[in-house]
């Protein structure tokens, strides 16, 4: 149960963190320990190492891109693109997997990104009907509505890299390293299909999603497919994380990007920090409720732990702020339900099954049996008569959405 969990003596993470976490004899978690490297490593040397690495991928004759950068209207995209283009002078292809439910701020940020850096840009938008089907399935069976976007955003750049003969994909920070200290910065961890499947996609990749809904077809998931091992072995595509070579501090980087390019955040009900994920109207709302139900903590907990580690806030103060925000109601429930084609009441059904015990099952890798909510999608709560795609909420670039 929640009260038996070990807590880090420095940050707010507990032993039920879904990525896995370890504690040393002093009760300090692996995330805080690895964070110490940020103050101990020679980052000038590391940046030089990055420069050499990037130079080796510079295309002579400029008849192809030097690298591929996955971007979105939120998070670290501005900083990554700024670093690669303005600092290292590479010629990237920017790629974006349209999450299908974007905020106006997110679309605006993406447009500003494109105009500020004048790099080539490619976006993939899957059929909104398929998008809804995937989101429904992942919501009911995996307790997340983010699976679609993560599956697409982590596979698209790799697929394109392979198809176009651009072997370098550049990411920002490695989530596992930043949150739970999964690796030392010196390990220079790269993207792996294993991390994608186990952690990004909760153990269920696009080949596995079929078993949750017999209506899925191969065509439905083509745009979510990660290249197989044999293909990657031939093309030598690799994905590196700038966070291994640059002292990563998202908050500082956001400040810099706001000043330089006008990156915009959005006020969010369940956290004090405006600049993470302003591009998704449900990420810090209903998705955050799901996270809290499953693991007993929210996005604000991640942000507070980050701020504790960077010395911006004390643990005691962070605990109070955390408590204040995790009790807040999510916004955009009706809009999201309308988009999904279900009643708002239908959203409560997955929640009823997400108890704190779920977290223990995650640790024991038996979450699939714990998540005993395999509602048939024909359940009356999951259907709306004459459900139509809500174009405003879908917001796939053809207009600006509600409220923004």
């Amino acid at each position, binding site marked *: 149960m929640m009260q038996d969990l070990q807590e880090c003596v420095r940050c707010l993470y507990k032993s039920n963190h879904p990525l896995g976490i*370890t504690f040393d004899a002093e009760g300090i978690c692996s995330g805080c320990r*690895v964070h110490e490297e940020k103050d101990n490593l020679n980052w000038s040397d590391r940046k030089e190492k990055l420069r050499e690495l990037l130079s080796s991928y510079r295309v002579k004759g400029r008849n192809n891109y030097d690298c591929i950068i996955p971007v979105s209207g939120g998070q670290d995209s501005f900083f990554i693109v700024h670093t690669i283009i303005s600092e290292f002078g590479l010629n990237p292809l920017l790629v974006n997997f349209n999450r299908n439910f974007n905020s106006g701020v997110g679309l605006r940020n993406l447009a500003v990104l494109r105009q500020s850096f004048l790099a080539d840009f490619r976006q993939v938008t899957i059929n909104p009907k398929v998008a809804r089907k995937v989101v429904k399935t992942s919501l009911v069976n995996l307790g997340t509505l983010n699976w679609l976007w993560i599956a697409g955003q982590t596979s698209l750049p790799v697929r394109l890299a392979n198809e176009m003969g651009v072997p370098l994909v550049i990411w920002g920070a490695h989530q596992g390293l930043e949150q739970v200290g999964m690796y030392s910065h010196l390990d220079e961890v*790269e993207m792996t*299909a294993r991390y994608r499947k186990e952690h990004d996609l909760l153990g269920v990749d696009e080949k596995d999603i079929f078993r949750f809904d017999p209506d899925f077809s191969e065509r439905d998931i083509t745009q979510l497919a990660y290249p197989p091992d044999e293909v990657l072995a031939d093309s030598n595509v690799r994905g590196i994380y700038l966070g291994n070579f640059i002292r990563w501090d998202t908050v500082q980087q956001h400040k810099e990007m706001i000043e330089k390019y006008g990156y915009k955040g959005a006020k969010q009900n369940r956290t004090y920090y405006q600049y993470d994920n302003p591009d998704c109207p449900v990420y810090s709302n209903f998705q955050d409720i799901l996270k809290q139900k499953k693991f007993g903590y929210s996005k604000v907990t991640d942000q507070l732990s980050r701020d504790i580690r960077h010395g911006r806030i004390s643990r005691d103060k962070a605990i109070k702020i955390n408590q204040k925000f995790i009790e807040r109601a999510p916004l955009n429930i009706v809009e999201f339900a309308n988009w999904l084609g279900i009643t708002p009441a239908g959203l409560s059904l997955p929640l009823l099954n997400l108890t704190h015990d779920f977290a223990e099952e995650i640790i024991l890798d038996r979450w699939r049996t714990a998540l005993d909510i395999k509602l048939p999608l024909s359940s009356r709560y999951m259907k709306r008569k004459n459900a139509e795609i809500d174009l405003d909420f879908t917001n796939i670039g053809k207009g600006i959405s509600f409220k923004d």
Partner: protein
Amino acid sequence: MKKRLIAGLVLHENLIVNSYQFKLHLPVGTLRHTLERLQDWQIDEIAIFNRTHSFDAEKDFIQLMSGLVDSVVNTPLSYGGGINSKATIDRVIGHGAERVIISASEVHSAEHLRHLSENCGEQALLIHLPITNEGGVFFIGNKKMNSVKILIEEFSKRVPYSWGGEILLNSVNHDGMHKPDFDLITHVLPYFKNRCGLILGGGFSSALDISRLMAISGVNGVSIGNLLHRKELAIKTMKDDASMDVRRYVKELE
């Protein structure tokens, strides 16, 4: 014996972890997903070191394996963690392990080693020797095993000549440090000549280092750890670059 690439997996409270000098352990993920990937890439063997074992090694192993009932593990698997008696060795082998890993501290003499392997056979035992280099003096043990600070020469006498098992030597100082300790290897090898084959581990992360190791007589294999988790296609790349045969996955033979 064919030279092999072995996955050295450290288990810490049911998590596979990255290990650094036997002191720092960082979470990687579950055993299930680790095994899936290792099998995809045809690792020769898998060795699991359970550092947070209970007093009942058999129960630990059963619990571990029960979490994998719906996975197929085709790769030879060695398991260690609190195994210190013949009865436990026999039971763990009975439950599906190809080999068991026993700590150097559990080996008292050559006679004792023969006794331990009486039922399962010598080849079913793998002795784990973590070796620390303290100012040029190599001894078996690490901080956790402080009370068992044995010099290598002394320990080697506990291994019979022409023993059918193997020893896995792990450099504590170089564990997770991206560079193996060839001084250690040079120092240790003579003691085990004509006694048993050696597998070396600790800091191996490049094909060049692996090639160099495999060229040494008396070395049967290399154990790689952290590298497995941080790069895509690490195993295949390593084997290709080190000119090692990739073990043919059973399916390919059908």
